[in-house]
C-alpha cells in the first residue's frame, strides 16, 4: 500500500477512497501506530451495514488489555460493508493493517468531511508531535 494514497483522521483511522459510479467509497481501518499502541487486542466490533455514521462520531469499539475504546468514523456516510473476517482474526491488524485488516467500507454522503482528513505526512507529524487523540 502506497501510504500517500491514504488519508488519515486525527483519531488514528486511515481512509482509502475509491470512486464507484460517481460515488465515493471510503475503506476505513486503524493505523499501524494505533494498533502498536493498543498492544494485545481482545475484541473489535463495528456498526453494521446500513448504519449512518458521522465524521468524528463512533462507528465501533475495540478492546485491549481490559480497556474499551471507541473507533471514530473519519467521514460522513453509510456503512456498506463490514469486514467480518476480522472479528475472529484480530492478528490481521498487526500483520496487514492497511490491507486485509480494513474494518468497514463507507459510502460517503458528504464529501466536505473528506477535506478535514490529513495527508500521510501531516499524520506522521501529528504522531511525532502529539501522539494523537
Amino acid at each position: 500500500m502506497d501510504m500517500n494514497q491514504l488519508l488519515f483522521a486525527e483519531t488514528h483511522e486511515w481512509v482509502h477512497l475509491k470512486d464507484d459510479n460517481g460515488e465515493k467509497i471510503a475503506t476505513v481501518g486503524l493505523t499501524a501506530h494505533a494498533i502498536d499502541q493498543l498492544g494485545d487486542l481482545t475484541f473489535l466490533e463495528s456498526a453494521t451495514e446500513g448504519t449512518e455514521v458521522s465524521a468524528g462520531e463512533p462507528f465501533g469499539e475495540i478492546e485491549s488489555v481490559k480497556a474499551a475504546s471507541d473507533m471514530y468514523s473519519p467521514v460522513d456516510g453509510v456503512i456498506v460493508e463490514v469486514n467480518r473476517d476480522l472479528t475472529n482474526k484480530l492478528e490481521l491488524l498487526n500483520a496487514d493493517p492497511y490491507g486485509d485488516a480494513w474494518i468497514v467500507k463507507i459510502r460517503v454522503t458528504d464529501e466536505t468531511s473528506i477535506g478535514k482528513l490529513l495527508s500521510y505526512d501531516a499524520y506522521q507529524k501529528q504522531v511525532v508531535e502529539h501522539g494523537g487523540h
Partner: protein
Amino acid sequence: MAGIDSARRGYLIDDPPGSGVWNMAVDQALLERCEQTGDPVLRFYQWSPATLSLGYFQPYADRKSHPPSYHVPVVRRSTGGGAILHDLELTYSLVVPNQSRWSPVHQQWVKRVHGAIIDVIQTETGLPVTLAEASPWSSDGEDATTPFLCFERRSPLDVISGRHKLVGSAQRRLRGALLQHGSILLAQSTFAPELPGLLDLCSSTVDPSRLAGQLKCQIAADLGFEFEPTSGERWYSSELGDRIKMITVERFGSDSWTERR
C-alpha cells in the same frame, strides 16, 4: 505523559451504597463531564443490593454459567474485562483527561492505584500481595476457556495474593477522557463463594471500616492530584443529575443495553 505526573486539582466523592444501574450511570456522567471540563474525579462506592456487572464485551448469556449469581441484579459496565460480583467489596472509579486514548501509558493509572492498594494491605494486614505479571491464557479474545468472573482471570497489574486475585481494574477511553473502574474484593460473597476476599485471607483480625478508610486515603494520595472532597449528593442534584437520569434510561437501566451481546 502530561497529566500523569503533574499535580492538579481534582474532586473526591465518597458515595453511599447504590444500585448497579445508578453507580454505572454516575460514572458515565462523570466521564462525560471530565471530557468537557478536564476535571479529574475519584469516586468510591459500594453496591446495594449485591449486583453482577458484566464486562462491556461479555455475552449476557454467559451469566448462566455462574449459578450462584444468577438471581442477583445485573448491569453491563462500559469498561472491559470479566464479570464482577459486587457484594462485600469496595469499588473505585477514576476519571481523568485523556490526551492519547490508544497509548499504553494509561496502564500507569492502574499501576498507581494498585500500588497504593498493595501498600495499604501490607501495612494494615501483613498479607503478602503483589502485582500479577502475565495472563495464563491466550489474549486472542474471550472464548470457552476464559473464566466468566474477572476475579478468576489474571491480567498483568492485577493485585494478587498467592493464587487469589484481590483487585482488578478496567478502563473505558474516550477521545478526551478515560474512566477506570476497579474492584477491591474485601470478603467472600454467597453469590460468588469460590472467591475469598482480602479479609478471608488474613490470619489476624482486621477492621474492615478502617481498612476501607485507609485504602481511600492512600489511593487519593498516590494519584498525584490535589483532591477536594465534595458531596456527590450535591453534584447529583444539579445538571449532572439530569444527565445521570438520561443515561440511566438510555443505557444502564435498559434491557437492550444489558443484553446487547
